[in-house]
């Protein structure tokens, strides 16, 4: 088994302008995803929008996220799966109607 981080990138504007019904629909979708994949889930959180981000590079603190892009990292799930195909099968179910997800295997350090 390997662990994969599923990074959710979406258009923040869609949420900034969305109404309560949208918020509820998305929450329900995530609730459903979580219930259906609880065996594989190892963690996951939603992030505050990039307007709250602070970046540090070379010791210099600046306002904002690293890259200003249309689709921003908005949350993640940590999942455990047998292989990439199994991970992709789960990642396809992650709600991301205003963007998409990126699947990254976690680094495994060789234990001598």
């Amino acid at each position, binding site marked *: 088994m*390997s662990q*994969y981080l599923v990074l959710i990138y979406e258009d923040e504007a869609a949420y900034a302008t969305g109404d309560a019904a949208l918020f509820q629909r998305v929450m329900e979708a995530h609730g459903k995803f979580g219930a259906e994949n609880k065996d594989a889930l190892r963690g996951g959180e939603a992030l505050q929008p990039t307007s709250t981000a602070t970046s540090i590079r070379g010791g210099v603190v600046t306002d904002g996220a690293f890259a200003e892009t249309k689709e921003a990292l908005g949350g993640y799930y940590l999942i455990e*799966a*047998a*292989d*990439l*195909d*199994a*991970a*992709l*099968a789960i990642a396809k179910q992650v709600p991301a109607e205003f963007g998409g997800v990126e*699947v990254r*295997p976690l680094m*495994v350090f*060789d*234990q*001598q």
Partner: protein
Amino acid sequence: MTGADSRGAGPQADGAPERLADAVAEAVADAHRREWGFVLAATARVTRDLNLAEECVQDAYAKALTAWAESGVPERPAAWLTTTARNRAVDLLRREATLRSRLPLLVDDAPEPEHDIPDERLRLIFTCCHPALALDAQVALTLRLLCGLTTAEVARAFLVSEPTMAARITRAKKKIAGAGIPYRVPDSEDLPQRVEAALTVVDLVFTTGHTAPRGADLVRADLVDRALGLARMLRILLPGDAGVAGLLAYILLTDARRATRVDAEGRLVLLKDQDRTLWNRDAIAEGRALVREALRRRPPTRFALRAAIAAVHDEAPSWEETDWREIVGLYDVLLRYHPSPVAALNRAVALSFSEGAEAGLAALDELALEPQLASYGYVGAARGDMLARLGRRDEARAAYEEALLFTENEVEREFLAAHVAEL
């Protein structure tokens, strides 16, 4: 990686008559051409690491040169090579196991039966053609791991430098291991999509060989033959798949005209001027039977339709007797189910022969804004031909000149330049 590139440099049988050595070398080369993918796929199942599997298979082929000279070529060379490669792998893994616990670099499920060596090539195909790899990496891995081409050969085939190709292959192998791309046949749910990806890879190998994008030769026979070999392999492994049947038919029916596509001096010969008596009738007969089978599936697959179009050309007794209405009709179906700008361009050309050059030009005009065709040399060539047929010489010359800008194959360039000069 360099170790795997040293094939063919194995030891010669000491003191053996030259003829025997030649026969053995021939048998090893033949087994290399036919069985590499089988042996590697079966070995990778044991090593769970593609690099190590390659090394062991390499080693087995080198051993075969001496062993077969001493005790004769075995009845089943693939089984001999696989057993030898696997023994080597087990040996190396045992030695290494005492040094550190090895992480499996290839993930698979189901254990395999011990008594016989199963055909694992499907696993290897689906790993090489995984959509999580870039398409050029899929192609490179397929040629290298399934066909046994060296990095240098793959680099030459795609006219890139060897270090570039080596880096591409290394990156792809790292992704397979790092991301956990599995070494197994996908679930039935994913299978159609994944077979499609494998067909795309084989088609790309064929297309690159059929009309080389660059270079001095129109046809790269080595690549065409590899594509045909891969399509035949898929046909054996997935006998019921209509997409596979369509692809094999398409390659056979298109490549049947290979011998007549250039003249004795290597100059381009258009379909209308080709000597049809020299077309490969066996390939056409085999392809036609496959097309009929492939077209039974609804909706028809993209390759079945492309094969059907090739079949109409192959069956026409002469250029004048070509059934262009049938071809346009087939392109219409192709565009309905599998739309692409290139198919639309080909339809426009067919239309110019069934309805006249004016109709062809009008269809071409509709494609003027297709970004995919913006730097596609065949657009200018098609327009040039249609304009020339209408006697609009100045415009035709300009169109051929535009085509020249986007054409890097020297045989095609020469052909286009001759048209520019004539007009």
